[in-house]
């Protein structure tokens, strides 16, 4: 399989504290890849580096074989590489439908398209995706008034609305009612198979990530500790030590 995201020797430090050191990994096109590691191991920093949130100190990041480490966030997003936030971010004062509509892909939009209104198919897609995540009934409520879990689902639906090639999810199940997690795993898998979106997922819940990912990378202390299939990771002594030893 082709690698859609290639990270080579990426290092990033904040004021002397090394958050990532020499990390290399690749995300396969069309697959679901997991990223795990104890708290503070540099997972979110790596995500931020990939989507261009901050400049990296050294190394290279390629998306669809093109270097993106010098690009700003918006430009990377318009290439079809999107992320969701650990602390869910939605547009609080707008209702769910507006949240969805504004998430339509902007890479296809010229400046003058902004001065048009949405067509019927945009509304249908919105309704369809809101239905997909189970928020159809709440679509005219202000997004800010939804519960945390619902906001998380809305953010996921907004990401799908954007038709990304690859989607980076930062702890998609954190804060979600445990009874809904199975439904969410199912939806993530369907997003992968039905919409063909490559997923790269940070997750703390081991049951979720073992169930979801085909390949898993494990970070510890800002460095790549292990990689492999869920079975390999589960039986890797270094990973077990990292999780137990640090705490």
């Amino acid at each position, binding site marked *: 399989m082709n690698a859609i995201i290639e990270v080579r020797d990426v290092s990033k430090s904040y004021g002397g504290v090394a958050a990532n050191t020499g990390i290399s990994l690749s995300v396969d096109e069309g697959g679901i890849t997991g990223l795990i590691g104890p708290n503070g191991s540099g997972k979110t920093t790596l995500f931020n580096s990939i989507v261009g949130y901050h400049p990296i100190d050294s190394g290279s990041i390629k998306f669809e074989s093109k270097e993106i480490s010098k690009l700003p966030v918006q430009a990377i997003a318009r290439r079809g590489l999107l992320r969701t936030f650990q602390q869910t971010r939605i547009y609080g*004062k707008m209702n769910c439908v507006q949240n969805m509509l504004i998430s339509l892909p902007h890479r296809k939009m010229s400046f003058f398209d902004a001065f048009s209104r949405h067509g019927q198919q945009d509304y249908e897609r919105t309704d369809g995706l809101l239905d997909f995540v189970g928020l159809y009934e709440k679509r005219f409520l202000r997004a800010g008034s939804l519960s945390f879990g619902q906001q998380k689902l809305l953010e996921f639906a907004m990401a799908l609305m954007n038709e990304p090639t690859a989607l980076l999810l930062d702890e998609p199940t954190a804060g979600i009612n445990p009874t809904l997690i199975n439904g969410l795993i199912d939806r993530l898998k369907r997003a992968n198979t039905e919409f063909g979106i490559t997923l790269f997922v940070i997750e703390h819940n081991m049951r979720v990530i073992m169930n979801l990912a085909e390949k898993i990378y494990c970070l510890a202390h800002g460095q790549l500790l292990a990689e492999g299939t869920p079975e390999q990771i589960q039986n890797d002594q270094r990973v077990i030590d990292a999780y137990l030893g640090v705490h």
Partner: protein
Amino acid sequence: MNKRNLILYIAILTATVIAPFLFPDFRTQLATLWLMIIVALTWDMTGGQMGYNSLGNIFFYGTGMYVAAVIAIGLVYDVGAYTDAAGGQIFIFTEAQYFSGLFLGVIGAGLFCSVTAVVIGYLTFGLRGPYFAIGTLGVAIAAGELVSNWDWVGGGQGIALPVYPGDFDIGKLLFYYLFAGVGVVLFIFLKWLYSTRFGEAINAIRDDEEKAEAMGLHTLRYKLTTWAMAAFFVGMVGAISAFQLIHFEPLETAYQTINLGIFMVVCVLLGGKGTLWGPVVGAILFHVFKEVTWNYLLGWQWVALGALIVVTVVYFQDGIMGWLMHRRPEWFGIRVEEKDTAGA
């Protein structure tokens, strides 16, 4: 548009047209009312709809005044000689020169302010929240101070435009209709703009700019366009004001940071930020309050005004529309809807 709204709009438009004839003694006040509505609506474009609270929009008002003056005078005479008090030359404008100066001055002021907004916006839109407010305030104050030292446009003494060549009352009427015309056009323009994807985009920037960037919005482009559009209208009304006032000076009239510059913000807060009608309602209330109470306060007007700002900001920040939205959410389309299984 349903029938009730249509009747409402026609009624408002009719009232706009006949108001100066119903209240012939208040033509100037009515014109000023439209000025307040316009600056409030344009402030809300960035402040309410896009979340960028500027304290320096008055910069475009003052700049519009000066650009109009320079155009109107420069078409006929040398501006430096015109403003030179010691020159002793007499300057006469024919009717044709006056009206071509008015027309080109107003349009030119709008365009110039748009371009300036793009330049200043490019530099200041990296500033967020309070830094943006202080930065824009700084631009307005700096402009006033620099212009008052610039002798070519009259320095601190200001500059005088030609007087309206015809009948004085007709002149008042003309300025009323100019302000009202710009106001109506602006309102219709905004009603349309907020219904497009552009309106959604600037609302998204207001709610969470970082998220909007992460979703690939051209945030800077939207911000610059919005500010340029707002500046266009403010520059135009600044130019109209310049012709209406005839004489103006930089610090108290043109770059009047603490008068009109802050009034527009108060109008919007009073009426309700981020709504189309809020700024209009707020501007009317504020202007009426100001005109009615002004003369009874015996010199304490400005203190009362400062107090009004503080009270509005501290105790009534959501404004009238915000209060309505809280009390009657269903009027604003906020509701839970059951899934229509038969239709789908």
